[in-house]
């Protein structure tokens, strides 16, 4: 009986198919990716069973952290941010250079008072979360800086949309669950002064039980 000859097969596999698949996935991820917005603070939001989602565009964000400090943010719209910053610069004599205004285009949300803004924009991106820049935007009636930001952002937004627009920007309020109600009430009051009456409370998904 002759011996059964086992042919030696190469262990190498054709990588072409795998390469195809991996590049397909890569293309998918590159096209669908949306980078996580650069938020000044991470807050733990309360849970809800609501099913609506936050839109990508035409949203202004107000973040409230557990200590009741307010932060303001515009995401995914560099041009709008630059317009807002230059309007703020003109209105409140902040003496910002064009470079500094460009630097603002890269910032997602911020919590610095106007007096600290020049320093904030000149700081290295890694230093922007320094405690001295995280004191929160003043919201008291004496120096309502959040109101100024909202007014100027709305003006810039309406100019960009054109006068005829029927769209209304939405405002997302992202509060830490331990934040006190008075701060939220004050922020809602500030927004209502600007005729913004529809809000979106950002929440986490909670199981319906």
């Amino acid at each position, binding site marked *: 009986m002759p011996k059964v000859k086992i042919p030696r*097969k190469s262990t190498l596999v054709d990588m072409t198919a795998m390469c195809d698949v991996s590049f397909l996935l*890569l293309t998918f991820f590159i096209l669908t990716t949306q980078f996580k917005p650069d938020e000044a603070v991470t807050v733990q939001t309360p849970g809800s*069973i609501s099913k609506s989602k936050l839109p990508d565009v035409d949203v202004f964000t107000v973040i409230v952290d557990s200590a009741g400090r307010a932060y303001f943010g515009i995401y995914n719209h560099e041009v709008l941010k630059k317009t807002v910053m230059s309007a703020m610069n003109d209105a409140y004599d902040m003496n910002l250079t064009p470079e500094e205004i460009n630097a603002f285009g890269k910032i997602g949300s911020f919590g610095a008072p106007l007096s600290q803004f020049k320093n904030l924009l000149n700081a290295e991106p890694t230093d922007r979360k320094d405690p001295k820049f995280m004191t929160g935007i003043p919201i008291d009636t004496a120096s309502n800086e959040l109101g100024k930001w909202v007014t100027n952002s709305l003006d810039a937004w309406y100019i960009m949309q054109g006068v005829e627009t029927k769209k209304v920007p939405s405002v997302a309020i992202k509060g*830490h669950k331990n934040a006190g109600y008075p701060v939220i009430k004050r922020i809602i009051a500030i927004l209502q002064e600007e005729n913004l009456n529809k809000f979106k409370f950002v929440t986490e998904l*909670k199981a319906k039980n």
Partner: protein
Amino acid sequence: MAELDTSGKGGHGKGKKKGPKKSSTRIDLTPMVDLAFLLVTFFMLTTTFSKPQVMDIVMPVKDKEKQEEEQINQTELRQSEAMTIIIGGKDTLIYYFGLDTAKTQVIGEFKPSNKAAYETIRKSITDKQLELEADDDPKTKKINLFVVIKPTDNSSYQNLVDVLDMMNFTEVKKYAIVDVAESDLSIYNNRKK
């Protein structure tokens, strides 16, 4: 470079021809696959698939003329359909129906972890809804529950969102967040402890 030889059975069928050695046009794709998967991993980790989930709130327009109008509307609110929830400090809330402040219910520890507290208030709301639905009087038929939410200054954002969530859960169509009045504060302060 490693050569791929998958043609164990003489791939091209014609057999081997003798002649000058032709170098294979195949190249090893393993490093390329490595690179591609590295990038896939990077994009997978940085991407945000799920958009944040939001709860829509519409506040009444603050306009002098309209405010007067609203006050008229408020007086029209029937006692039978009204429910008031006062959110106090330390996760406490009290509620009563109509103007029946004697029958005030107090709920302590109104936290997401405390299911019993949720269940109590949910049951009160659904019972009231059923009661209103069962009403056959043609005059008062089709009246829905109207919940007035009054958060005090000591309440937390979590409590407010939880109460609003309760409204969505029990499908209460009409609710409003209203500033708390002096009379409500005294009701709250005199609650059973």
